[in-house]
């Protein structure tokens, strides 16, 4: 029983970070109908950002996380301005963006491999190997800090979407792009800001990754697949769905790791993805779209 509780707790801690990773991806999809296949590559860029600030300047990754937000926001806005206006009018916009970000993912992976090499990295902070004990159950400090930071960012995102003026615009665009435009929402600037926010969330998640996992440039495909599974299962565009899917599937994958073996853990994400596509293609909280 203790073991079971332990496994579930570790799963939830992992899921909290996955939730942050997936939130930016699903936000961008919800607003712009863009599946950003480079999202996980940008998370790795964020991880190097955290790693080098820690190794070079001794800045704690949790502080780098706060720094990453504006830096990656601006990076996202710039990238959006360069890439997307060109294809906005394209007939198959959705598909174009998938291919465009697919190419982008390779571009950044290649650049990172070139500059940072393929060596495994981890920012070895004091807390990344430490743990709290409650009775027989241990809670890794690094994981706990990361989950707390994720939760704060996700609550901040929620409050921003719910109460700010821009947040209204973002939610209106998510619900119905044309209608939002009709009632005077500047859909293009909302898209730009959302892309920036999505990127800021990726960067922030990356700084957390820097001390949680051993990472290297080509690692992003594995994470991307997990994140894509999460947003499809949760319902594409639903942040609530992504968070619930992240927590649920991370617990499932911890159970698989514990009961079967770690190699099969990713299978829980893919397996549930295919199951969801068979039963309910729109996902848990997705709108049923008839294309």
């Amino acid at each position, binding site marked *: 029983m203790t073991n079971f509780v332990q496994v579930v707790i570790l799963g939830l801690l992992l899921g909290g970070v996955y939730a942050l990773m997936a939130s930016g991806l699903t936000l961008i999809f919800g607003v712009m109908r863009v599946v950003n296949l480079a999202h996980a590559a940008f998370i790795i860029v964020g991880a190097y950002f955290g790693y080098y600030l820690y190794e070079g300047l001794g800045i704690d990754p949790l502080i780098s996380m706060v720094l990453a937000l504006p830096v990656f926001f601006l990076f996202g806005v710039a990238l959006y301005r360069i890439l997307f206006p060109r294809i906005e009018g394209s007939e198959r916009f959705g598909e174009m963006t998938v291919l465009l970000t697919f190419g982008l993912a390779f571009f950044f992976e290649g650049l990172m491999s070139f500059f940072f090499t393929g060596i495994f990295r981890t920012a070895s902070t004091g807390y990344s190997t430490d743990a709290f004990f409650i009775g027989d159950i241990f809670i890794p400090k690094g994981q706990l800090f990361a989950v707390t930071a994720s939760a704060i960012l996700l609550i901040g995102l929620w409050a921003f979407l719910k109460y700010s003026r821009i947040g209204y615009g973002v939610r209106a665009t998510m619900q119905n792009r044309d209608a939002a435009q009709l009632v005077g929402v500047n859909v293009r600037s909302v898209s730009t800001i959302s892309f920036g926010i999505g990127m800021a969330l990726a960067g922030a998640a990356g700084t957390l990754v820097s001390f949680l996992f051993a990472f290297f440039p080509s690692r992003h495909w594995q994470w991307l697949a997990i994140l894509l599974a999460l947003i499809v299962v949760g319902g*594409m565009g639903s942040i609530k769905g992504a968070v619930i899917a992240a927590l649920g599937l991370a617990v499932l994958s911890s159970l698989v790791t514990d009961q079967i073996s770690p190699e099969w853990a990713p299978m829980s994400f893919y397996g549930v*993805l295919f199951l969801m596509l068979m039963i309910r293609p729109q996902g848990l909280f997705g709108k049923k779209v008839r294309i």
Partner: protein
Amino acid sequence: MTDVRTPTPEAAVTSSEPNRSRWIVLAVVLAFVALLPFARWLESYNYVLQVGTIILMWVAMASSWNILGGYTGYTSLGHNVFFGIGAYVGGMLLVEAGISPFITAPLAGLVAMITGAIVGLITFRAKGPAFIISTIALLLVIFLLLDNWEYVGGANGLSLPLAPFELSWVKVPFYYGMLVSAVLAVLLGYRVAHSKMGLALRAIAADEVKAEVAGIDTRRFKLMAYALSAFFPGVVGAIWGYSLTYVRPTAFFAISVAAQFVLMSIIGGRGTVAGPVIGAAFIIMLNELSVTYLGGSEINLAFTGLIMVLALLFFPLGLVGTLRATNKLPGWLDWD
């Protein structure tokens, strides 16, 4: 496949005279490609033959991808899954039963095709982005399965015996194996494009709901497209594994291999019959040049990504598509 040709208006106008010169050019090109292995006096004969083999292999694969990704408009970002499955089927039959992959290649294609149809049954409930995501997930699932399945060698994969050909000729059978696959794959692409099925697929790509309203059994045609597009990657996978003398998950299931399918079709012109052929030749030669002069596979990867981004932004119709749009496409490349 129904075989009802639908003559396009252009074809009716430009018949007879230009048609003959078109066939002459094509025959010359094909003869050149077919006779290349006899040019043994070439200084870098082995290198030329190797690059030729790779180009022909990719012509077969990109043309197949194009049936699903080009005509039908359903992008697969994990199509090398069928390439890998073919390699494993061919490799296992060689190791266990001692049958040459040159004989079992069609069977490998068939297994890939059946896999495609089964996967299609599951994933075609999803459309657009969710479908694309399912293709990536499929790739990673099969990768994971084969990486951990000890019977087929796990992460180390299979070691295959050397092909029993005389050493100085050893590359030649592989070259012709790929040539036959490439020609057949292009012919398949041509036949599909000029059949009722091709019309249906293009209708699905243009507007699936309208296609369905017009009475097209979209589900059946999509499944057929998926299955057909899986066949030749399976065939050439079996041959390619034999020529490498090993079948390892990382060699076949890397996602950068999947990117090649997409990139070649985009550069050549998605949805055109000749596009993937031109794209495959162009990208492989570019890869060879970049490896020779830039070295390092890291920069090569960044380069691949950059080309894809630039092509999508500035050259979305691809070579064949752009030439057609400006009415400059030479007759011998106009296969649509």
